[in-house]
């Protein structure tokens, strides 16, 4: 299935691209995207993932044409 991915800000991007499509097997989870993006366990733990505009848990199962937005937890002031 095709998944649209958008990465905001300083979070690691494949080849610097912030918007791209991924082909993932049916039943793939958000964590499968992290794996494709080569996020370490530590990096992945600070990602705030949203699917179709709603924050989801990393274990969330994706569906065809989902739009995933990834951003980093930030805490400065």
């Amino acid at each position, binding site marked *: 299935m095709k998944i649209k991915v958008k990465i*905001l*800000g*300083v979070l690691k991007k494949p080849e610097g691209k*912030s918007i791209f499509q991924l082909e993932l097997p049916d039943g793939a989870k958000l964590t499968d995207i992290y794996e494709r993006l080569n996020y370490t366990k530590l990096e992945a*733990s*600070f990602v*705030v993932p*949203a699917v179709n*505009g*709603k*924050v989801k848990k990393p274990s969330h199962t994706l569906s065809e044409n989902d739009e995933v*937005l990834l*951003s*980093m*937890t*930030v*805490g*400065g*002031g």
Partner: protein
Amino acid sequence: MEKLTKSDLDRYDRQIIIEEIGRQGQEKLKNARVTIVGAGGLGSSVSMYLVAAGIGEITIIDGDSVSLSNLNRQILHGESAIGKSKVESAIRRLKDINSDIIIKGICDKVTDDNVLALMADSMAIIDCLDNFLTRFILNRAALKLEIPLFFGACYGFEGRVSVIIPGKTPCLECLLKSIPPPEKVPVLGATPGVIGAIQATEVIKYFIGIKPTLAGKLLLYDGKNNMYETIEISRDPDCRACGTSHGRRNE
């Protein structure tokens, strides 16, 4: 309920003529009491706008002193304040902006032990902190006191804003499960300027009776690419702070 004075009508004229505010809205602001935690980058922007807007009573809390490396973003403070407490410096600047309101300063760190006493009299908490541990302390205090928490955070060109209304929206810990380790956070001065101004706008909307647009949502701001995204947060039934299974609150 304190009424508007003649001088108030003059001072706040440009915002009283905003249809959604009017004299009634301005009076609501005059009767509001808020606590701003942090007199750094976010605290600079939030406090100056809320003081100028005529929030009746503002308490600002910070335990640090001003240093040279603060000045790129903490526009409340100037070179003459280096070495002085941030609260003292903030009060001097804020009283110069508006001497008609009550401005209090507390030079202290917020802890688990003092948080409830510090916030007890407040109608809203504005998070202008630079670390998550204290943010979670504020989050739990807001839940306990049932007052809203206005969350703001920055990193480089990026910022986040959310409004937590206990009993109505998810809390900060529903959203943030693991937090990055403490580090020297890069911050462009204008970023907390933008983020703090958005927090201040949400605070004003809350008090004049317009639902804060970011209640239950997280605004993601990326100044480098001029991107603004808003995503919805859901309540986590297993949340350590507000989850029903932890007996804190119910829907």
